[in-house]
């Protein structure tokens, strides 16, 4: 990623990159500026105005407590993106260090890291997340922790594969020959070169993490009321499925739109940087 600006321009000049980038930008702005953008508060109840269908005053209708659905979806972007980005961000950081050290030092440390990674690898993320929530209890914090641990194997594996590919390069030998410490070689020379594929994989995983957060929220194990979360909103909407289907439809559109935009944008980055092969190496 020598010229990030140049790459970015290349990405958004393709139709796929431009459309998905624009959608992502809107979602991020909604999350950041929710209190200015949202027409109503997310938690003020108005029972006489419950389950109203979409209209001029409530563009997406109201939920079973008479809360404006559009406002709740805008605030919900905050929950989704915050959990998605922080949990995957933490997972990527830990994965870089673990996978980097395992790939660089090898030996018993590498074997034990690989054994644990392989162990969690065959289990679906949702199962790992549910085990962790069983320990930490339901809630948004445990959801974020559960998601970051559920995805750790992926980033550790990917980083390890990158480092093993890089560590025998001549420049690494030269740096060691000049007397650099292992930490210096790993953090200053190897990890920066391994960074791009891991970050792109992290971006794609953010989409999955948003779905996982919504799923856990839908189970009632994630965000607790009145915190607006796309998944939890749909969960309370199931009781109103016969009279107010919009409570289920619109938060789902928000999730699907965000996740599809993240995936398409991630794909556009992969093509622009030509790193599809590197992502497959793990």
């Amino acid at each position, binding site marked *: 990623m020598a010229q990030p600006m140049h790459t970015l321009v290349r990405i958004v000049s393709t139709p796929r990159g431009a459309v998905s980038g624009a959608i992502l930008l809107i979602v991020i702005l909604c999350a950041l500026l929710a209190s200015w953008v949202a027409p109503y508060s997310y938690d003020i109840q108005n029972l006489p105005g419950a389950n109203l269908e979409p209209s001029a005053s409530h563009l997406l209708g109201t939920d079973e407590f008479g809360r404006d659905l559009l406002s709740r979806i805008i605030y919900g972007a905050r929950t989704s993106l915050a959990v998605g980005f922080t949990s995957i961000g933490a997972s990527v950081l830990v994965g870089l260090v673990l996978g980097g050290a395992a790939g660089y030092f090898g030996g018993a440390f590498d074997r034990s890291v690989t054994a644990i990674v392989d*162990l969690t690898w*065959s*289990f*679906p*993320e*949702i*199962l790992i997340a*549910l*085990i962790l*929530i*069983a*320990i930490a*209890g*339901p809630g948004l914090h445990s959801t974020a922790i559960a998601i970051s641990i559920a995805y750790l194997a992926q980033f550790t594996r990917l980083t390890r594969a990158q480092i093993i590919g890089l560590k025998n390069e001549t420049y690494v030998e030269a740096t060691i020959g000049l007397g650099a410490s292992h930490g210096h070689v790993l953090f200053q020379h190897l990890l920066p070169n391994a960074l791009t594929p891991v970050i792109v994989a992290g971006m794609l995983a953010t*989409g999955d993490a948003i*779905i996982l957060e*919504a*799923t856990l929220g*839908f*189970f*009632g*194990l994630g965000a607790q009321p009145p915190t607006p979360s796309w*998944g939890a909103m*749909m969960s309370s909407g*199931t009781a109103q*499925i*016969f009279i107010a*289907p919009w409570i*289920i*439809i619109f938060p*789902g559109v928000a*999730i*699907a739109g965000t*996740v*599809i935009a993240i*995936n398409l944008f991630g794909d556009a980055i992969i093509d622009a940087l030509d790193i599809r092969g590197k992502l497959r190496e793990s």
Partner: protein
Amino acid sequence: MLTFILKRMLLLVPVSLAVSIVIFMIVHLVPGDPIDHIVQIGSSPEQRAELIARYGLDKPILVQYVTWLGNVLSGDLGTAIILRQPVSALIVQNMPHSLTLGGLALLFSTVVGISTGALAAVFRDTWIDRGVMTAILFGSTLPSFWLGLLMILLFAVQLEWFPVSGARTWGSLVLPVLTIGIGGTALVGRVTRAAMLDVVRKDFVLMLHAKGLSPWAIQMHHILRHALLPVVTILSLRIGWILGGAVTIEFVFARPGLGSLLINSLSQRDYPVVQGCLLMLAIAVMLGTLLGDVVQAIMDPRVRERIA
């Protein structure tokens, strides 16, 4: 082949041990006294003492684990706190529902996924291919629980073709199987298409064309057969994901099953049931992966050699 299966099963031993330790530790890692998480509400001090003795909660943790594992292996998973039944009985009641749903969804994903993937590959770069690829993109990114809710809205609430929830009739299986199957189909379809397009470029295909075989025979008898190997590989890797999908979808359709039981018990903090369900699901994932590996080894001798 038998040696392969035996060796592959031996590999499961350390994995199962690790999984059982994690699941055993759940009640010990939850804040509070473990006994409070496994004793029924309103139990007498004698009953508490009996449970403490049975699980050996006053003994060192390693002894407790061995006792617990011994109980589990003899089929004693404890007693549900809220439902007040042996956990093993609850699992026996719910397991068949999950197996039916997961098995049918797997079958659907395989058959429909391979067919649509092959269709897209044979008609590559036409509108059929583009249509299938777009459907695959949506199928693999839409959250499955939302897809399930939309299916309920359309086919159960609006059209009234199928029941909204429950598991009383065979018709109630259609929407859940479709919901899980769409995600699985997208995965299998994408891999089938990519694998077939990969094989098309091989020399032996050129040779078959030169020998004058009909393009249809080449596609179906030679290319698709070669392409099936990566499909089986991805299925054996992802069998757990399809089973994991069953966990979510059971809850959406309010069907009985291990997934619904697990999620409801998690909300009620009924730890013996949570442990029992997680254990069963983990075993199901491991056996599913084993099954996938065996099928792969039957199809490809190289896989057998790698592990033997």
